[in-house]
């Protein structure tokens, strides 16, 4: 659905995007994660055929972004960073206006607009001026606009920026509803929780480059090591570390608390419990220690920063 090869973008002498390559298949949600100014929006604008790449190539929904920009734009839905709605129009008229620009027949446009308004809970507000909509409603309206022609590719740029938690939740739920086997979605965000909840794969962008790419599990394993487990015993036991040696990598022993890593928890954890019980060290609880995407992100960004510092020096 989306194939980008070595995309570069210069604005004068400012190198905004430096060799971004990515692939998003149908049915997949890719999150572009990165700080403000990392090049996420510029990448999305190039893939949406609004900006032309200075170098490199990209095909979106089967069309080349440079050779067939109008076809690309006809086959994508773009949710911009700000909803960007016309406040003096009512919801239905707004959607019908965009349906016309998308060359949809009037009947189809109206039917689709009505269907989406109902689906996203805005049907009752369709005759109201957009000016009176809440932030969440506005964002949903922008999502409907992006979805109006049922595009096979969706670009969602910072969909929950500056929203209160409830509105953000509403929008996230709405995005979840857009998942389909035939649709590729690219989600630009610096909200890690959002990426964790919505994305199948994550690409971390920094200084216009993709510095890491993979599924959440892959990235965690790659950057944070094997999953971390925490074990609480009834009382502190001596020689616990030696007892488990060769079975797991012990990270921490603190009295009755033990932390270890293992890539094969299903096989190893029962063995550990058995060994400890046999050694007279009954276990109260065994649980996995959550490893956040934030830790992954910070690790990547710090590494990129460290790499850049000597170059700058």
């Amino acid at each position, binding site marked *: 659905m989306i194939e980008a090869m070595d995309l570069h973008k*210069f*604005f*004068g*002498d*400012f190198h*905004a995007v430096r060799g971004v390559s990515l692939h998003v298949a149908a049915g997949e949600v890719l999150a572009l994660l990165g700080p403000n100014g990392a090049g996420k929006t510029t990448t999305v*604008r190039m893939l*949406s055929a*609004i*900006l*032309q790449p200075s170098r490199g190539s990209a095909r979106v929904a089967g069309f080349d972004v440079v050779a067939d920009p*109008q*076809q690309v*734009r*006809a086959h*994508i839905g*773009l949710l*911009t*960073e*700000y*909803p*960007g*709605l*016309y406040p*003096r*129009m009512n919801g239905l008229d707004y959607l019908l*206006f*965009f349906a*016309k*620009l*998308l*060359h949809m027949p009037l009947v189809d446009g109206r039917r689709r607009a009505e269907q989406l308004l109902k689906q996203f809970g805005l049907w009752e507000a369709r005759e109201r001026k957009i000016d009176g909509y809440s932030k969440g409603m506005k964002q949903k309206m*922008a999502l409907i*606009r992006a979805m109006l022609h049922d595009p096979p590719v969706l670009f969602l740029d910072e969909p929950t920026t500056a929203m209160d938690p409830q509105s953000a939740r509403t929008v996230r739920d709405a995005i979840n509803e857009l998942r389909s086997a035939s649709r590729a979605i690219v989600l630009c965000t610096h909200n890690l929780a959002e990426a964790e909840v919505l994305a199948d794969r994550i690409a971390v962008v920094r200084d216009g480059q993709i510095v890491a790419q993979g599924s959440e599990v892959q990235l965690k394993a790659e950057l944070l090591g094997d999953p971390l487990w925490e074990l609480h015993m009834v009382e502190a036991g001596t020689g616990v570390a030696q007892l488990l040696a060769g079975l797991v990598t012990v990270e921490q022993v603190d009295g009755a608390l033990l932390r270890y890593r293992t890539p094969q928890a299903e096989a190893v954890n029962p063995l550990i419990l058995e060994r400890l019980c046999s050694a007279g060290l009954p276990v109260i609880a065994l649980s996995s220690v959550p490893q956040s995407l934030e830790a992954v992100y910070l690790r990547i960004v710090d590494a990129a920063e460290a790499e850049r510092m000597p170059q700058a020096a």
Partner: protein
Amino acid sequence: MTSSSIIAVARREMRDTVTDWRLMLPVLILTFVVPLLLQTALMFLLSYLNENSTIIHLIPFGVLLCGFLPASFSLIGALESFVGEKERNTLESLLAMPMSDHELYLGKLIAAVMSPMLSSVLAMLTFTVLIMFNAPAKVIQGLTPWLMVEMVALVMCKAVVMVAGAVIVSSHTTTTRAANLLASLILVPMASMVQIEALLVIAGNQRTLACILLGLTVVACMLIRAGMSAFNREDILSREHAGFSFRKIGWSFKRFFRAYHPAGVTPEHYTESFSLGRFYRRELPVLLWDYRQPLFVVAAGSVAALFVGFSLWGTRTIHPFDAILLQVGHPDAPSWQAVRQAFMGDSYVSMLVNLTAPFSFGVFAYLTPLVSFAQIGYGVGWSLVHHGSFWPFVLGYIVPHSMLKLPTLMLSAALGLRIGAALLYTPKGFSIGQNVLWALANFLKVWLLVLLPLFFVAAMIQVFITPQLALFAWGT
């Protein structure tokens, strides 16, 4: 290009305008209240004056004024057509639609033009109807149907010029504030034009008014063409990253100056340093070849001007030029002072008309050699009538120095035309600003390294050789 997208964009914009009472209220006042007040003032004036002839001339001016005021106010809408949407973050969703740049631009332009046109026509009609109902029949005689049509056409053309200019400003600025500041570049010339037109209306000079109408139509067409060629999504979004910087402008200009590459090659790709040898050997021939189109236009215009000048002799008398021609055969004594005068005059004119070319679309630069050729044509006609042959005039006064001076003036004109055209057509890879800078840098380089030396040599020949040949040819 499909009309449905253009109509959709235009309709939405117009609907947006008419539903905004902050815009509509002043427009309605200017459309209906101002004509009423103006009509009342005229009636009041009539009651004091016994002589109606002055008032007769004021009525067409009233029509002009009534039409101009709402048109100038509607500039606000045109000015924010792009930059306003950008500030309100609504532009990107429009840019992401499957419509071409031209469709989007035309939709915006039509919406921006329709509002001032409608309000202007309504205001002019209101004023005319009020005058027709209230003024004595003798006064109404001053407003002939032809004059009314001319006034309406003048206002319409000015509205299109202002709006087309405003839409260009709007699509090339990053804030509404900057666009409003630049609006004075549109409003001041147009307001001055209304004052000139007022004088012409009062003087009853309809012929000149018709010429102004023609000129405004040409400018309106050029501005629409310029806007369409310069507008593109890429530039609008890229401008977010490029703030206005004199340093950057200077840097680009220097790069364009130090080497010659065809238009469209961005300054980042100018890696070579300046080389005089390379300029004369390689770059100048390429530049002249690339400028073949404006050179051809200038050459064609020059030939036409020669014939026009020739045809003028006998039908019209140009007294100052006749006085100069009477001096033929009695040249001034050669001096370095005369060389300086001739050289400075040509250089100064060439520089002035080319530097103002971005504002005049290169028209003045284009006219410079044409005036010279027309003078030659006129002189040839004069010579034929007075001396039975044009050869002494041509050989003694034209050929020696004009062999250099006329081609130099033609090259200068071609460079000026290219500067003017930089606003009308932007090659791929360039922004409109880069295109103007590129053309200006080429002009400056050629002016310094080619035109000035040639003007100097021509001035030397004009002062030291031409008079000797003239004396020889005329035998005095």
